[in-house]
């Protein structure tokens, strides 16, 4: 297994493999997305309580899942960067940050759009939304730190440390915010968890979640290739590549 891990680590190899995979991933993503949307918008019945507005869940919940998932992936890459100093892990780490930040922003925006009809305000200090907001700051911290350091090799090691410190703090922050929310219980019990889910709603939800995961890998390959090229622009393989184009 280690040979594969090492071989994948070599930039030109990854550049070619990723390039070949992108069209396939695009196809899989399209199929999953369309079936998820069809299931979510057409097949699933309206919720007895929230009517049609609950259909936002098919974007909100998968985005929230992705925002957490991508941060954990970044922390894992951070460990690989610090321990094995693998250039590819550095590239994956920093290419994932904007994608994760976008999913977090998407979860926040759709959460507020979903909350408006139910409680009449755009923002509600609900436990999950507040944790999501803090997670967005963690992402912006990662992106901000990476842009602030000129030497990209040092920048990715700094971001690796920050991602690891961040991932240790995420459960702590989440627990604290949940506890804080239970303390200051608003007059109306803001029941923000998913409405009673039955099969015809669950399948589109899982399809959308899968679609987002494939989308993440797809976009990650795309931006990693761009970042890799940017970092290795003076190396031999990039020269041959650009001359052979």
């Amino acid at each position, binding site marked *: 297994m280690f040979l594969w891990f090492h071989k994948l680590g070599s930039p030109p190899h990854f550049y070619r493999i990723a390039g070949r995979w992108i069209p396939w991933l695009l196809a899989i993503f399209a199929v999953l997305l369309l079936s998820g949307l069809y299931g979510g918008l057409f097949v699933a019945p309206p919720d007895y309580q929230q009517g049609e*507005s609950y259909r*936002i869940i098919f974007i909100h919940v998968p*985005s929230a899942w992705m925002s957490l998932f991508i941060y954990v992936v970044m922390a894992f890459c951070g460990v690989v960067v610090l321990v094995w100093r693998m250039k590819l892990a550095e590239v994956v780490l920093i290419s994932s940050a904007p994608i994760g930040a976008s999913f977090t922003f998407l979860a926040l925006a759709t959460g507020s759009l979903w909350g408006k009809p139910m409680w009449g305000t755009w923002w509600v200090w609900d436990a999950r939304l507040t944790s999501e907001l803090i997670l967005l700051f963690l992402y912006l911290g990662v992106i901000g730190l990476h842009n602030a350091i000129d030497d990209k090799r040092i920048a990715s090691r700094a971001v690796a440390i920050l991602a690891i410190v961040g991932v240790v703090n995420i459960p702590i922050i989440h627990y604290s915010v949940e506890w804080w929310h239970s303390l200051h219980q608003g007059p109306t019990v803001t029941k923000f968890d998913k409405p009673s889910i039955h099969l015809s709603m669950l399948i589109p939800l899982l399809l959308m979640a899968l679609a987002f995961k494939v989308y993440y890998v797809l976009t990650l390959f795309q*931006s990693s290739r761009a970042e890799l090229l940017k970092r290795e622009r003076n190396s031999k393989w*990039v020269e041959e590549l*650009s*001359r052979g*184009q």
Partner: protein
Amino acid sequence: MMSEFLNMGGYAAYVWPSYGLAAVVLWLNWYLPRRQHEQLLLRLKRQHRDTGEQKHDPRS
């Protein structure tokens, strides 16, 4: 049937912006790195084609 679907049981003003925003965010995340990638490839092609004169342009 179509207009009723679009109306989304009166919540059209919230459901469609959510999906629209999702589409924009997901598309941007895909398109921006792709464009950056193509621009870099163009620049590299020019840089490596005329290898006649100074090879390494440090401020490339």
